[in-house]
């Protein structure tokens, strides 16, 4: 690749055993690990997430190929490494389901072109591409970014896949169906608005969008991501540090709020299984390129995200805060890495020498 300086002769010297994993394998495994969450999403919310996925993945691959071409990089190794597909999947799953076609396409454009390739492509992006795109979309299109679907059992009429695609392309719903009948505020949004209006959390939670522990349906999606995340942990593709520290920090913050005033603050379970907490903890915050890499650095990084997520949800201008939290902590990652260097085997003292 272009990154390898000429001074290094790869064929020179040990080890003489080839590596057993490759980037593509890692990325594909992460994508497969999204399946439980995706299936729960489809089960509870219909085809909406799928239209997002189709638009995002297809356009991400297109933009990736285009930019690789412009940057005169070899196409196949980078298109097949799965990184663009994974970015697109994470973006698609973060957007409101059944979003108009241009929203995921624009998101992919921002993610792949601006957040990734213009910084040098795979491995060189300082910010999580999917989250950078999500943040830009959220700020630019607040209305489109807050039109979430109701769970199927609360919808009057269930859309077919064809209807879903038709709607995303031309905005036309089947006759007799208005978008209001199938859409609603997210549980976190409702919680935010209604506590702001002075309602008690216990009353708000009686609303139909809430389920057993968090949102109706979304709690199952969260559990699906948790399951996929545990598989990634078991496969050692991610380490425990970031998800655990993020979820513990989020739960601790929520627990404190809940203890102070349970009528003003939702309980920790709702925070853990509401919004993008689980997706963020296991799939987004763990993006190796933009996260801290040392063990202690990862713990601080994850905990920082957890605290920020809670802060943005409780006191910020947005109902969810995973994207902003990940981007903010991403800025600190290089610094965290520098100040959390582990003690080298046999070293007399910690960290940097000299």
């Amino acid at each position: 690749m272009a990154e390898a300086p000429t001074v290094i002769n790869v064929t020179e010297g040990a080890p003489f055993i080839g590596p057993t994993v490759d980037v593509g394998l890692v990325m594909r495994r992460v994508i497969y690990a999204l399946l439980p969450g995706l299936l729960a999403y489809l089960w509870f919310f219909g085809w909406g997430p799928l239209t997002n996925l189709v638009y995002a993945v297809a356009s991400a691959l297109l933009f990736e190929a285009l930019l690789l071409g412009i940057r005169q990089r070899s196409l196949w190794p980078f298109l097949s490494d799965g990184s663009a597909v994974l970015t697109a999947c994470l973006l698609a799953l973060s957007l409101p389901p059944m979003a108009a076609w241009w929203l995921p396409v624009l998101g992919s454009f921002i993610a792949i072109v601006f957040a990734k390739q213009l910084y040098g492509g795979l491995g060189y992006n300082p910010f999580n591409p999917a989250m950078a795109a999500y943040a830009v979309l959220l700020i630019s299109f607040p209305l489109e970014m807050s039109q979430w679907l109701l769970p199927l059992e609360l919808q009057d009429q269930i859309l077919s896949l064809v209807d879903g695609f038709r709607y995303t392309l031309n905005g036309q719903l089947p006759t007799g169906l208005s978008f209001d009948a199938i859409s609603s505020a997210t549980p976190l949004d409702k919680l935010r608005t209604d506590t702001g209006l002075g309602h008690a959390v216990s009353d708000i939670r009686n609303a139909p969008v809430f389920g057993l522990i968090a949102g109706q349906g979304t709690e199952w999606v969260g559990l699906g991501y948790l399951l996929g995340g545990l598989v990634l942990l078991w496969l050692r593709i991610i380490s425990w540090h970031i998800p655990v520290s993020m979820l513990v920090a989020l739960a601790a913050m929520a627990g404190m709020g809940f203890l102070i005033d349970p009528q003003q603050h939702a309980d920790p379970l709702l925070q853990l299984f509401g919004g993008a907490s689980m997706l963020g903890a296991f799939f987004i915050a763990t993006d190796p390129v933009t996260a801290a890499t040392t063990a202690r650095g990862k713990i601080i990084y994850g905990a920082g995200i957890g605290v920020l997520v809670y802060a943005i949800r409780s006191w910020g201008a947005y109902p969810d805060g995973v994207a902003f939290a990940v981007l903010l902590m991403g800025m600190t990652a290089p610094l965290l890495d520098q100040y959390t260097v582990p003690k080298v085997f046999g070293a007399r003292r910690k960290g940097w020498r000299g």
Partner: protein
Amino acid sequence: MRRLWSFPGGIRLPGFKQMSNSETIRGLPVPERVYLPLRQHIGAEARPVVAVGERVDKGQLLAEATSFVSAPVHASTSGVVIDIGKHTVPHPSGIAEECIVIEADGEDHWHSALAPLADIDNATPTQLRAAIREAGIVGLGGAVFPSAAKLKPPRSIDTLIINGVECEPYITCDDLLMRSSAEAVLRGCLLLRRILCAGQCILVVEDNKPEAMQQLRLARDILIDAGESGAEGIELVGIPTVFPAGGEKQLIKVLTGREVPTGGLPYELGVVCLNVGTAAAVHDAILLGRPLVSRIVTVTGNGIKRPGNYLVPLGTPTHALLDAAGRTDDEAELIMGGPMMGQRLPTSQAMVVKGTNCILVNKPEPQTAQMPCIRCGSCANACPMKLLPQQLYWHAHGKTFDKLERYQLDSCIECGCCNLVCPSHIPLVSYFRYAKTEIADQAYKRQRAEESRLRSEVRQERLERMKRETAERNARRKAARSKPKKSVSVKATADPAAEDAPQSQQVSNG
């Protein structure tokens, strides 16, 4: 049961040991010629004590040790010295070094003067150590440090570790040695322990070698039954198979829970670590009177017809060994040592030396595309030294060598674990080797520059001093010659007009 610790990182590797450990050790026909390098060890080159044309017997001294860290070389077969000169030695560069070449007579008879150490039971540690030194014994695990030097640590030793771990894939020479000569290994341990007066002696084997462990247990029982004092004190310990558990620092950590300090040596912890092969060689030297003239070499890999272990006279060219084992594939590359830390041999002309534990003949791995680092941290998890290879790579790549020193690149043992787990297929160890060489080179150049700067300063000073002295001398001579004139000049300064000038200057200054 001894409590075991674990070392950080490490990886589990497929062993490929069954390829070469299913049969007993094979002999090798006496080679036509043996090429014995004068430096088969770390330290100073040995000095030849024979001349071209001289007849020598097996085990006869050919070259003597020249300093504390040095080792003698003995004839590995009987014959005639036909050359003392440069021949290709086993090194990736294919470099030639000074060797003594013996044309074998095929008799292979031992030198008559060789005899076991007299009155072994009453021999002092100094005498035993001298015998080890004279036998040319060096660390046979691969580091080839002269053993006698290692056995004279500057402080007392409480733990002697005999390393039978053999953690590299493919290699089985220590395995076969322990299976076939367990008693010799244990007797060697007893002698080493006597020299060091070590409180405990641990013989450690990875748990993928149950047969070796079994033989060691049997041999220990035999020694105990024979009333061999101290035999029951040799602790036989099995440890989990994780690469690189056989590395000295890792092994000491596993057995004692302590870390050898950076830049330090095991004796600082009261530990000495020696290979099982070394222990067996000590047995041969002291109890049989035989210097180190041969070793067991594993010949294996998918390019070999009959993989196995061979007892090889030192100096045997690799091609003779390959002929005996049968080479199936001329495309396959030659590796001396294991696949993780071995060295590629550019030619089969290079000979077996004291440090040769394995000749691995494998097809080269297909080249895979190198991708950018995605900072996944797999390398850091695998690093047994707890380094951050992803940061080291970044700075080696950017040639920011000062950062590399701060990230302690010098602690890297080049075990290759990071290389193997990297999903981006970055040849990390190659980068680190390159950076280490560059850093050493820069340090050398800095030192040279500093020296030449000092030299030039001294020279400048000397030149100026000479100039000054000459000027002073000239001035004195001149003054001596023109003494009468001096009164005139004194008169001149007394001139009122001349006195005005300094005064006016003072005014302007004020």
